């Protein structure tokens, strides 16, 4: 059965009541915010009135002028500095620690990777982890797992780091948290070897191979 749609929209006539209800709900949800903005332009004696006044009877900027009687700019600058420094340091130090645990081989990483791979947060076999590395030798060549859906989840930014053991299943944005797409160690090793031998094209080739891997996994290549 073909649904009759409202011309110029993707809304079917039978969905009109739902759309109206939803938009009313959205407006009601935004109403306190509108009220807050509207009140900021009202004189103080018109804030609490007997009748509901969504728009100010007379617009005043006195409230905003009063704000600047205080060192608001200093407070704002403090917030900006604090937010910028916190974000920058979190990203920098977090990336450094993440890189070391995922890629470098040292005893602390062994611990972390063991926990990760046992819980299937990380790649199935980690070369940075000695016990995994040993078991991977007996298990044969490493497998690269790829799933097109995984890329979508990553774009949505829902993959949380595996540092919160109490987070529920699917905290990474999907019910199956085993579907991670790590960068294969082999490619990184080749890029590093290329850098040692002065082969500057190595990085590009590795990048190209990485780009092709999801396609290969999906059977397109």
């Amino acid at each position, binding site marked *: 059965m073909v649904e009759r749609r409202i011309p110029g929209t993707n809304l079917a006539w039978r969905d009109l009541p739902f759309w109206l209800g939803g938009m009313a709900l959205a407006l009601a949800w935004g109403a306190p915010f509108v009220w807050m903005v509207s009140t900021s332009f009202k004189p103080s004696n018109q804030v609490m009135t007997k009748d509901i006044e969504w728009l100010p009877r007379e617009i005043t900027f006195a409230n905003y002028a009063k704000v600047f009687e205080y060192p608001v700019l200093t407070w704002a600058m403090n917030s900006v500095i604090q937010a910028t420094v916190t974000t920058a340091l979190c990203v920098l130090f977090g990336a450094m620690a993440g890189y070391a645990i995922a890629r470098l081989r040292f005893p602390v990483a062994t611990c972390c990777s063991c926990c990760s791979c046992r819980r299937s947060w990380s790649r199935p076999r980690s070369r940075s982890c000695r016990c995994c*590395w040993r078991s991977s030798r007996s298990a044969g060549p*490493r497998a690269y797992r790829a*799933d097109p859906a995984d890329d979508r989840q990553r774009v949505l930014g829902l993959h949380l780091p595996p540092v919160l053991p109490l987070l529920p*299943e699917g905290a990474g944005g999907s019910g199956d948290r085993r579907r991670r797409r790590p960068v294969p160690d082999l490619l990184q090793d080749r890029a590093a070897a290329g850098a040692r031998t002065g082969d500057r094209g190595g990085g590009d080739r590795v990048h190209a191979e990485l780009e092709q891997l999801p396609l290969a*996994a999906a059977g397109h290549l």
Partner: protein
Amino acid sequence: MASLAGPVAIRIASDAPATRPRIDRSGYLFVAFFTVPFLLFNIAPIFFGIYLAFTEWGIVGDPVWVGLANFKEALADDWVANAFVNTLRYAAIIVPGVTCLGLLFAVFVHQRWPLATVARTLFFTPNVVSATVIGMVWVWLLDTQFGLVNRYLAALGGPEIPWLTSTQWALVGVSLASIWWDVGLAFVIFLAALQEVPKDLHEAAAIDGAGRLRQFWHVTLPHLRPAISMVVTLQLIASLRIFSQVYVMTNGGPSGASESVIHYVYQAAIVQYRLGYASAVSMLLFALILGLTILQRLVLRERLRG
């Protein structure tokens, strides 16, 4: 032809030599930049708090070891019991409210009907405002005489409710403001999860004659279980730690009717300078949050397996 839906394995021939891997000592330096501040500013205060829970300390002077006295006092204190009961009530109102409304809003916006972008903005906007501002605005909105909520209730023939001034309604009033504030995050998580639901399943269900409600119940909702689990867990933890709204809107009153545990801890530590006692109450709250989170996760895990 290979399937596009499931995970596919490609075997990559490993040419790595079968020798013991060398140790990269630079790894310690990389990790130290994160670990040292984390230990100093996150982990050390936790252990200091645990230590303080067994002492009596008023900031000035040295802590005096009192053993389990703080815990005994806290467990016998009616105000602590009241704060814990209120906190559980907050969780009982806020968690289902945020989860259901977030899901409802996400499903609406996901239809991509006209003005969906406007609706998306309106649903998410409260989440970007600070809790203090939310509290101030909702004190106006819930004012018994002049508040917008009571005005519209009166227009619909409803009674005049003393939202923030009666022991019966104060907790509900604070919960309303919290739901309005928190829904934005749940909405975004559900919206992202909805985009993961394969369309072909809906098409197959529609061909089989399933109506919209059945499609939602049997196709959409099972795919949203991980997101629901995540929202419930995060919201449960946030609700059990509720403070700013209580502090701004009611200051725990009237007569402790809207008192939360964290607000009580603040009163004990900062107003009364009883840091040891406040730490003991914090430990009890930590145990409650840990217990509830593990329980919730076990229950949801069983359901996911089922």
